């Protein structure tokens, strides 16, 4: 009989200790939270020469003037050109670190040139180097020159004057 009482007390002591230990542990919680950052290599593109269609004459019918990225100029329809001075745009692509491969994004639609006599549209942008699926390569922190041509649409009897606008070129490091 006596020994039975002692056994019960031992069990009770054990149970009393357990809750106190649990209380101390439960009042605090620690979690590890992850942190991430993605450092991409440096790439830049700088405009060095503007795209210039130079002097042209509009006709009694609409036409177009194309300055190609390879440096030639041609016309269609009623538009004709006068003199020289035309040039494709030129950009310098520089990759300072990271993957030396890059792709080029040119305007997909048209951009508007505005001037004293109204506006004209420029579209069909293309580049050298470039083309569908083109991947450029500028290794060793180097840079690469890219020229860009496009087509200017000249309405019939377009008012004389100087017309200008801007377009955006994006280079994406692979």
């Amino acid at each position, binding site marked *: 009989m006596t020994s039975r009482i002692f056994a*019960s007390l031992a*069990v*009770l002591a054990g*149970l*009393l200790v*357990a*809750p106190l230990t*649990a*209380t101390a542990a*439960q*009042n*605090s*919680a*620690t*979690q*590890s*939270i*992850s*942190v*991430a*950052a*993605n*450092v*991409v*290599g*440096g*790439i830049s593109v700088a405009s060095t020469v503007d795209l210039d269609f130079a002097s042209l004459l509009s006709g009694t019918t609409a036409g177009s003037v194309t300055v190609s990225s390879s440096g030639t100029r041609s016309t269609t329809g009623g538009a004709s050109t006068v003199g020289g001075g035309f040039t494709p745009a030129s950009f310098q692509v520089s990759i*300072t*670190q*990271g*993957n030396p491969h890059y792709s080029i994004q040119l305007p997909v639609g048209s951009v508007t040139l505005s001037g004293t006599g109204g506006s004209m549209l420029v579209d069909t942008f293309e580049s050298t180097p470039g083309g569908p699926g083109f991947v450029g390569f500028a290794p060793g922190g180097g840079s690469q020159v890219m020229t860009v041509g496009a087509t200017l649409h000249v309405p019939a009897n377009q008012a004389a004057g100087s017309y200008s606008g801007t377009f955006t070129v994006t280079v994406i490091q692979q």
Partner: protein
Amino acid sequence: VAALLFLPWTLCAAAIQITNNVPLTFGNLISGTSAGTVNVSSSGATSTSGGVIAFGGGSAPASFTISIPQGNPNYTVLLAISANLTGPGSSMVVDSFETTPAGSGHIRPPTGFQDMTVGATLHVAANQAPGIYSGTFDVTVTSP
């Protein structure tokens, strides 16, 4: 004895918990020729200093939820002093951890939980090597 056996379960239910962990992400960065920092605040704003450029979005503060189902509703948040992010290049340090809402508070019934967001500052060396860097930091919540 039956009452004492039940007591530990009651205390377990009152346990303070941290759940719903969302990582802290600094997004896409370009390191420059000089060192710089990127800060993602607990309110969700991203800013830079020095030679670092952040672009393309993708940055977000960390978040977690404190729950105190019952018992003392007061809590205090302890944040890491700093953490190291490791990756392809030299490791980067993250520090200046801060939360919204800040510091300490108490959880009002009947919800029993409090959502927290955590921001911090990432230090990027000049010409930091490209790649994905990752690490962890500890958040401890205590209830008196």
